[in-house]
């Protein structure tokens, strides 16, 4: 069992001239500061800062910046500059403990537990819940919740994608109807020289598959090029390391799996009405 020894303190950073602790002074405890905070306050490794619980300086205490870290990107905090400090838990409790609470009687919001076998998470949570009333133990997957912002955004983008596909399909049908209509004379001649409808339909289908495959490949190249641009823009805009667009193999395959059959089907559907007419009627000017 591993206690979460590093805690977050969204503390108020009191103005204090950055200085390196001299050897004869007692070395202040170490803290880590987020890159954003370090940049905003011009802090470097070795700087000594003073942290307090509020702007009036309640329980102010000196700390030494032992390192600067990049906060784990969190979409739910998008747009917020993470000015945060990481302290060792005992230091945090020393600062935040109310006067009437004895040391060791403080509470923490949560305890992360690393199991020897992660597959035991369910059973372990059940055991803890049974043995420690008042404590709620959950496997990490459940604690994250099924309706987290990621999943909701995923559903939202999926809905947008569906609408886009519907619109694209309708346009595609309109275009293929026009393109097929443009070739009615050719199709009429093919019918007149004896090619059966099925043979012409197969040819149209193959053409459709070819055009749709080229279109899908072009779309993927365009997506790969724009992926980088979109990520660079949003990472710059929000000062975050979050990745906004990632074209994975699965995403690419899904796109191809939708685009190619859709394009080919649109061609066949558009051609079908034409092929039902007689060869003479098609070939006449």
């Amino acid at each position, binding site marked *: 069992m591993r206690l979460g020894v590093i805690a977050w303190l969204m503390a108020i950073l009191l103005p204090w001239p950055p200085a390196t602790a001299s050897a004869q002074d007692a070395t202040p405890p170490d803290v880590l500061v987020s890159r954003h905070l370090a940049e905003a306050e011009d802090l470097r490794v070795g700087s000594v800062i003073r942290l307090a619980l509020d702007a009036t300086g309640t329980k102010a205490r000196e700390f030494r910046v032992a390192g600067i870290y990049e906060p784990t990107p969190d979409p739910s905090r998008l747009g917020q500059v993470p000015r945060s400090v990481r302290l060792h838990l005992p230091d945090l409790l020393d600062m935040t403990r109310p006067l009437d609470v004895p040391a060791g009687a403080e509470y923490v919001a949560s305890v992360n537990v690393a199991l020897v076998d992660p597959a035991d998470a369910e059973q372990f949570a059940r055991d803890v819940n049974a043995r420690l009333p008042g404590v709620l133990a959950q496997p990490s997957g459940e604690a994250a919740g099924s309706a987290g912002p990621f999943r909701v955004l995923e559903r939202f983008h999926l809905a947008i994608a569906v609408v886009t596909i519907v619109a694209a399909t309708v346009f595609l049908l309109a275009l293929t*109807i026009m393109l097929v209509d443009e070739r009615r004379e050719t199709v009429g001649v093919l019918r007149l020289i004896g090619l059966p409808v099925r043979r012409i339909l197969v040819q149209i289908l193959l053409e459709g598959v070819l055009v749709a495959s080229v279109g899908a490949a072009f779309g993927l190249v365009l997506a790969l090029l724009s992926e980088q641009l979109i990520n660079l823009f949003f990472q710059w805009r929000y000062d975050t390391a979050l990745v906004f667009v990632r074209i994975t193999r699965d995403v690419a395959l899904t796109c191809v799996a939708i685009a190619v059959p859709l394009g080919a089907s649109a061609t066949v559907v558009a051609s079908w009405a034409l092929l039902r007419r007689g060869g003479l009627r098609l070939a006449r000017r």
Partner: protein
Amino acid sequence: MNAIGFAWRSLVRQPARAVLGVLGVAAVGALLFDMLLLSRGLIVSMQDLLDRGGWDIRVSAAELPGSGLRVPNALDAADSISRLPSVQAALVIRSALARIDRASGRPIRASFQGVATRSTHPSGSRLRAPWTILRGRDAAGPDEVVVDERIAAESQLEPGSEITMRATCVTDLEALPATRLKVVGVAEFPFQTTNEHTTGGTLDALKTACGGNVGHDADLILVTSTGDPDGTAGAIRGLLPEVTAATNREVVGRLQQTGFTYFRQISSVLTTVTVSFAVLLITVLLTVSVNQRLGEIAALRALGFSRIRVVKDVLAESALIVGIGGVLSLPLGLLLASGLDRILKGMPGIPVALHFFVFERQALYVHAALLTATAIIAALYPMRIVSKLPIAATLRNEVIG
């Protein structure tokens, strides 16, 4: 026959392609309309939520209300604020975690909002707690509470029922005795999130629930000015420099710079993509259509139709496809917006009453302007084709071909 009438006949002559073109524009237009509603939806909705209770200034310990930091000595602060000449009333809000026991089933974990009003203004007494009573009446006594619809439904409570509550006001370690409280009303809490249960009452009721152990801090102080929120917020900042006083407009402005930016950005990106998509497709549609009718257009020119007239015909055709599709896109867009809104409201921590897609007249105007621009830009290339069409050569090719 004018250009519109002529374009209409061209479309009617090819019903399948015309209908599909219009439907395509309707689908793209609906998405475009939704993105425009999304671009300012959260801001408009949040402004509406903040303004709803009549409280126009929010005093909190952090830059944004709801950060978890508390205003120290809140009742004294509210007293001082209420004595300002430009203040009608100040309302202290203190939240605590509560557990409502049930006869059967697991207890309900809820938040308890305790409120206390301070006012020296004659009209201050008419201002109410920041919730809306749906049934029954507002809680007034130290043993009275109002509950939200979810608690009422899950515990089968109605005004007049009693609940057993254990509230923790200071730390989670408190082991307080259960307190019996009377439910006097069912209320709607504007900032309640979808996965939350909320109860409300007076600060005295919260004290009762917490066994008197409430402390002197508060989460928020709501203030109503006599008509000058900016001036009043400035006066509060002067009076209490350790707290943040922000008008509703300022709170929305801060949220706009932080939490709401993602949806504005995504809506800008999708608006650009949607408009480009529409321009591209309508251009292709019109170009192919014009190319198929080159002989016909050349014949019309030979019969005496001027160059400008055939250009107008193409433009009118584009306008008709985009216009009809655009009109259809509005109800379609509203329908789609309600579905997308439901999806996004599944996000944790989003108040039930907050909406991502909010209709504004401005969005309608922008939608119309973008579609008009789309119709014109999409028609540019086909218009160029018909304007440069060599009449004799085209007719000759048509006959020989």
